[in-house]
């Protein structure tokens, strides 16, 4: 694949951000697409902000996406989408969960009178839209619950990513990578979650 396709995955520690990148990485490997990812482990897993850089294409070498070259931010939590939006190119795409997880630090500021109110999804989406980003908000948690397991929300988001124009990896390859990446007993639920996420975003893109 010529050029580069850069995705930044983000969310809150414990949501399964790293697995999202691993699924796409494995799918790329199965299709011979060059892929590299940069992640951080350690302290940031304790309910903190987590992000993984992933880059696909023949020319990529740095595990970090240079600022302004990110094609897609795939966020399991909207505040985190906004936090890392500076990586996006102008007119880049954000696919984000609409379900806000309020940081404990923010809650504490509010009860101390240091802050007026919570940041909500609408604040995030309007900030992104006004900077020229294309934003798709979906509720992966409800979809995952419908699929049968709330923890599958990360796989819902992976499904949504596959519906986007420009993603170099085929839906079929990602589907098998999901099957290979989740515990055997949750495979069925996860594959369902994947399909549902794909469908959800496809509908938005008016493909269906």
């Amino acid at each position: 694949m010529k050029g580069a396709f850069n995705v930044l995955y983000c969310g809150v520690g414990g949501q399964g951000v790293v697995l999202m990148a691993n699924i796409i990485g494995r799918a790329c490997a199965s299709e011979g697409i060059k892929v590299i990812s940069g992640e951080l482990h350690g302290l940031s897993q304790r309910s903190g902000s987590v992000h993984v850089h992933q880059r696909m294409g023949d020319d990529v070498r740095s595990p970090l996406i240079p600022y302004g070259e990110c094609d897609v931010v795939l966020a399991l939590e909207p505040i985190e989408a906004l936090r890392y939006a500076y990586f996006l190119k102008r007119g880049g795409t954000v696919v984000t969960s609409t379900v806000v997880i309020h940081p404990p630090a923010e809650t504490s500021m509010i009860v101390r009178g240091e802050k007026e109110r919570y940041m909500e999804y609408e604040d995030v989406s309007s900030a992104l839209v006004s900077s020229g980003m294309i934003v798709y908000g979906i509720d992966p948690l409800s979809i995952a619950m419908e699929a049968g397991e709330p923890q599958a929300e990360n796989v819902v988001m992976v499904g949504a990513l596959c519906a986007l124009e420009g993603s170099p990896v085929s839906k079929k390859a990602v589907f098998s990578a999901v099957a290979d990446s989740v515990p055997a007993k949750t495979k069925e639920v996860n594959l369902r979650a994947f399909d549902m996420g794909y469908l959800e975003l496809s509908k938005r893109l008016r493909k269906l």
Partner: protein
Amino acid sequence: MSPYDIRDPSAQRAYMMANEAIVRACLESDVKVFASYPGSPTTEILDTFERICNDMDVRMDISANEKVALETAVGAAMVGCRSFCSMKSVGMNVASDALYVMAYTGVRSGCVVLLADDPHAHSSQSEQDGRWYGYNSYLPMLDPSDPQEAYEMVKFAYALSERYGTIVLLRTTTRINHQSAVVGTSEMRWTSFSKVNWKDNRRNYSAVGELARKGKMRLLETIGRIADDTRMTSFNRIEHFDGYALKKGGPGRSDGYTFGIATSGISYQYVLEALMRLKIKARILKIGMINPMPVALISGFLEGIDDLIVVEELSPYLETFIASAAQGSFSGLRIYGKRTGHLSEFSELDVPLVQRAIANVTGAEIPFDHLEHLKSMGSIADGIPMRPPVFCAGCPHRGTFTALRMALGDKGKVYLSNDIGCYTMLVLPPFSWSDSQLCMGSSLGIAAGVDLAAEEDVVSVIGDSTFFHAGLPGLVNAVHNGHDLTLLILDNSVTAMTGQQSHPGTEDAAGGRKGIKIDIEGALRGVGVSDITVIDPFQIRKSIGPMKEALKRSGVRAIISRGECALYHFRRYRRSGARTVPFFIDQEKCRKPYNCIKDFMCPAISLGPDRIPVISPHICVGCGECAQLCGFGSIRSTAVLKGGEDRVYYTPEDYGKLKEATTKSEEVER
């Protein structure tokens, strides 16, 4: 496609993290002994070995600390068994006392030691530059640029180690260890473990006085021979970037290149991407073996170069050697890098920084300025709430520190000497507490000094893993010298911060092997601490009194706060079939004093309608700590809604009893 299994002898290629590729390379190199102490960014090496050691017959220790780990690996290599040892940058500070001598004595079988630096101190207490350890110990050191090269260097390192009878150091950085990519691997000829015979192969590995001087002579000769060995230079190469693509290059003035870049490690990748964007010509020296430095190659590389930039992270390591190699012969050469301020010794590099530095040297036009983009986008996230890491829901540390604060009344009246572990987060909100917190075990040494010099009482805080790692000498010292201090030991059963590994105080050893649990009370008594108080961190109110009493007494008083790490505890709890029973806030009863939020900051608690706190049932594990802070009794266990008691359910047995008390249809969900 079936998933890649690192144990499969014929597995060919897969997307994997460099840390896994490194383990695969060890297995292909027939490594039989592995010893390590966890530390980011190397922990996945330990975790991967732990996952496969039983199947692959690798003998593995999770050692008490890095020095012991290094000695264990080297001990095995001395008698004739290939071994591997990995540690984070600061781990080498602990281990280096042994390292310098081992460099003198050498080893019989291959021994490779990985040390991983952490520029930007993502998860470390300093961003030290471990490359100087190679230079300082006269040991060969390799510096990979990607996961594939890390894999290849490990295999090469074993050949090198055995050819010269020396330890080989592999130096990585966070961006290598935690990088995933497609790595091609080779056939693995696996052999089962068998003990080696020492008696018939005996040799002497002692170093002192005359023996040390002999060892040093031998070492100088060895490192000299490695420097001259052309087989060793396969990881050092000259390349040409012709403005569009990378080509193989060679030394010499005749290629017409006048701009040069010398680099190694992850910086090499940033250089290439920067050049692709700037579309300028450059002769590149990529150094894979950073000790001994390839002096002859450097000279050849510098031929005909007018301007050279050295691109590396942290200190001017390459730059120093290149500048000295250039002295005299290349007097017209202009060298740019750290010393000229084109790059900083602070933090990590990335493509934008490297692109700008190269543009500044060459005058090349920057097609897209990432740093300008960053500036213009900077305001997009203005006012966004921070999300620093916090103690997990159900973390015992939150309860311990809440109790300690209440026991002291005024937290400012003591010197709080903190240590390294999850409890380091004490320094962050909501507690924002700690007078010092340096490196593993230093809570006790610092406490001794503070006790000698300050009017205030000292409270040292240390985790169970850190207690065994480097706390014991400080404790022995405090007891022997008659210091006054309260030692708060946070016994959460695991090395939590790095992912809940076992340690000397746990029943399991590496790979689930049965270990012998070192009893903390026993250890304390053994070194003369008789004033021991044990508290339950989940019983905040009940812990305050005993803490107060202990704080009032003199001598070395130990308070052991014993409660399992929530991540560790509830993972096993759920596996046993039990479900967590969350607490809830009675919305009618709540008078909004916000004790459950202020100074507490549990990730399960946020504000609901009318600003009444609510507990997220899928985050809450039912530790019940917050309920004890509520003066109105409005925080209760959801068990009461199902006919159970209003108390904490955190053993599978307790949960079983609750289940009996409820009818099937009413079963508490999640």
